[in-house]
């Protein structure tokens, strides 16, 4: 299953959450708080953990269709390498890739059978988003629609066909990122 989360660091870093232990205790487990504190760049490390949790939340909600909730402590992060990590939930483990750039952190998880293309954009309108997604798929913009279900989970529908494809989107500040399925038909 898929999920992604993007953090605009120009907005996030000034919030100085790594200095805010009360905040951290609502969001991060004890081991995560220790890792944030011990890291060379605690603010960046904190937002990496956050984006990993959000990304796994989205993938897990797609999997199990739980009602929306704010439960970051149910997602336990385990950093593996510079760009990869695992997020453990009660029922599953998600492998998460994190791209840590100077201005943003983007974390995403994809299932084995799913080869998404990821596109980034500075803040763009809804119409421009559809155009970017259509371009990535090599399709006309008029064919591409994004629909959200009752839980707010988005899917991609092409023209009036009944078939839909999973899509994951994240937007924060000046950046948007999409995980788009590669469609063969």
């Amino acid at each position, binding site marked *: 299953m898929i999920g992604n989360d993007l*953090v605009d660091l120009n907005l*996030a870093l000034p919030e100085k959450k790594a200095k805010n232990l*009360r*905040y951290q205790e*609502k*969001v991060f487990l004890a081991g995560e708080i220790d890792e944030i504190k011990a890291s060379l760049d605690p603010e960046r490390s904190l937002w990496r953990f*956050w984006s990993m949790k*959000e990304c796994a939340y989205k993938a897990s909600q797609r999997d199990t269709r739980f009602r*929306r*909730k*704010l*439960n*970051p*402590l149910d997602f336990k992060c385990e950093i593996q390498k510079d760009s990869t990590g695992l997020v453990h939930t009660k029922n599953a483990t998600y492998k998460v890739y994190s791209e840590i750039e100077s201005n943003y952190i983007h974390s995403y998880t994809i299932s084995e059978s799913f080869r998404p293309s990821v596109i980034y954009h500075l803040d763009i309108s809804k119409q421009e988003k559809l155009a970017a997604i259509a371009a990535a798929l090599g399709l006309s913009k008029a064919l591409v629609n994004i629909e959200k279900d009752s839980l*707010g989970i988005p899917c991609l529908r092409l023209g009036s066909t009944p078939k839909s494809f999973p899509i994951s989107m994240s937007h*924060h500040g000046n950046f948007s990122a999409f995980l788009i399925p590669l469609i063969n038909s």
Partner: protein
Amino acid sequence: MSEKEIIQKLKRIVEPYVQRNEGLDNFHEETDFLRDLEINSANLVDVILDVEDEFDITIDNESMEGMLTVGDAKNIIQHKL
């Protein structure tokens, strides 16, 4: 504290985090922090901390999970006061 007072205080608390200001014009129990006000989920935790400070209560993790609308927040506050 009356329900009306709680909701007025909540409105003041969330204002700095709101990204969709139209949502504030029609602020009522069904107003959804994420969908209607477009508060991002990282800032929803800030709202919870600010609610703790303003009402001098502790919001445990279980209560935090379900705090998605103004009405949810109001009920939790009333329960803890």
